[in-house]
């Protein structure tokens, strides 16, 4: 294989694999012998030494791996610490309210109320530690049940979930009647 092309292929493979790759396997892909491959890798490693490069190659026995230059390590920590904005979107709030008032509840039940899949929202709320897995439902597939956490109680200033205001049966009946009268109005027009 033409030299520049071979280097490009090696770089792409080492990048996408992330792990160490045996030089034999690399040689097979670029259709060169092991020595030539080794030489190409050495040339690449020399290129990576340049000031403006952030990656490098580590050779381990008969394998090679792409990695970050160790002197740049502090910046990796820095990026991990750059604050992400935490926001409770409408979707998250709606999902949270369903879990709070209907706990313990499965994903499927949440989806029934909202009418859309809720995986993303549930994962975010788990990440925020506002909800947690509280067990599994005794039903086919044993789906996970979710409930609110102590952090949720703390954040909303409640001592126990028993203190959550309830939707009474009366209120639900009221909703039904409201819905009916609204439709009736539309029919009358």
């Amino acid at each position, binding site marked *: 294989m033409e030299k520049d092309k071979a280097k490009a292929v090696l770089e792409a493979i080492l990048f996408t*694999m992330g792990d160490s790759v045996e030089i034999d396997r690399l040689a097979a892909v670029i259709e060169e012998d092991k020595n030539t491959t080794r030489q190409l890798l050495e040339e690449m490693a020399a290129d990576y030494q340049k000031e403006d490069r952030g990656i490098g190659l580590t050779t381990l026995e008969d394998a090679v791996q792409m*990695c970050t230059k160790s002197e740049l*390590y502090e910046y990796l920590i820095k990026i*991990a610490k750059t604050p992400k904005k935490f926001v*409770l979107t409408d979707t998250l709030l709606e999902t*949270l309210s369903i879990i709070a008032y209907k706990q313990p509840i499965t994903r499927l039940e949440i989806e029934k109320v909202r009418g859309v899949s809720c995986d993303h929202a549930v994962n975010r709320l788990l990440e925020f530690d506002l909800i947690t897995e509280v067990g599994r439902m005794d039903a086919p597939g044993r789906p996970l049940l979710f409930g609110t956490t102590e952090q949720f109680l703390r954040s*909303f*200033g409640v001592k126990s979930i028993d203190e959550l205001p309830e939707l009474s049966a009366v209120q639900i009946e009221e909703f*039904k009647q409201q819905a009916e009268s609204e439709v009736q109005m539309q*029919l009358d027009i």
Partner: protein
Amino acid sequence: MAIPVKLEVFEGPLDLLLHLIDKNKVDIYDIPIVEITEQYLEYIRQMETEDMNVMSEFLVMAATLIDIKCKMLLPKEVNEEGEEQDPRAELVEKLLEYKMCKYMSYELRDRMVDAERNLYKRPTLPPEVAQYRQPVDYEELIGDMTLQRLHEIFKQMMKRQEDKIDPVRSTFGRIEKDEIDLDLKTTYVEAYVRSHKTFSFRKLLEKQHSRMEVIVTFLVVLEMIKTGRIGISQDDIFADIIITANETADNGPVQLTSLG
């Protein structure tokens, strides 16, 4: 889902319609509505589907096509600017929009094939970085959200769920077919013709109590015109239609078998 194999070819009524227009090599802007409607109806007749949701979507389009077909037969409506309105305009617009969206979906498919050739890398964070969990700033996260507002949100959601249930239709039981006896109606109209000789079509219809009765009466009148029992005349477009009994015609019973 009980979607038959045959149906999978088409992504819905618009898709089927575009296919027919394409197959007939006709212009989307000048659809020969009579032929296309016939072919469309023929297709949905062959659809053996139990799924009422799928079927109803195709039936709605069938009704639209028939509606357009009827309008094409009537004098053209004129809009405020005095221009003639093509009854097909709305359908053409819908078809065009759908066609563009289909075109875009092919375009996207091509792009997907290209984009799949880019490979990415999974994160290889050093353990210290990977384990770092940014503390959640609950002050910022919760903001001015209160339990009361969370409760409001929940209430709204429950209300929306109730709204979704149609209080009228959800209480429907079986819908009973309102049977109108064709023979009885025939006898009735015959008697009416005999006693009135010359009368207004509108007057006859006004005596009917339901839409179904109006339709059956209309069918009986049509059949009587066909057999020559009555004649009709109309002075002007939209004027009342006058029905006159044809005394010379054979007085045998009206045959309605052909009405199906």
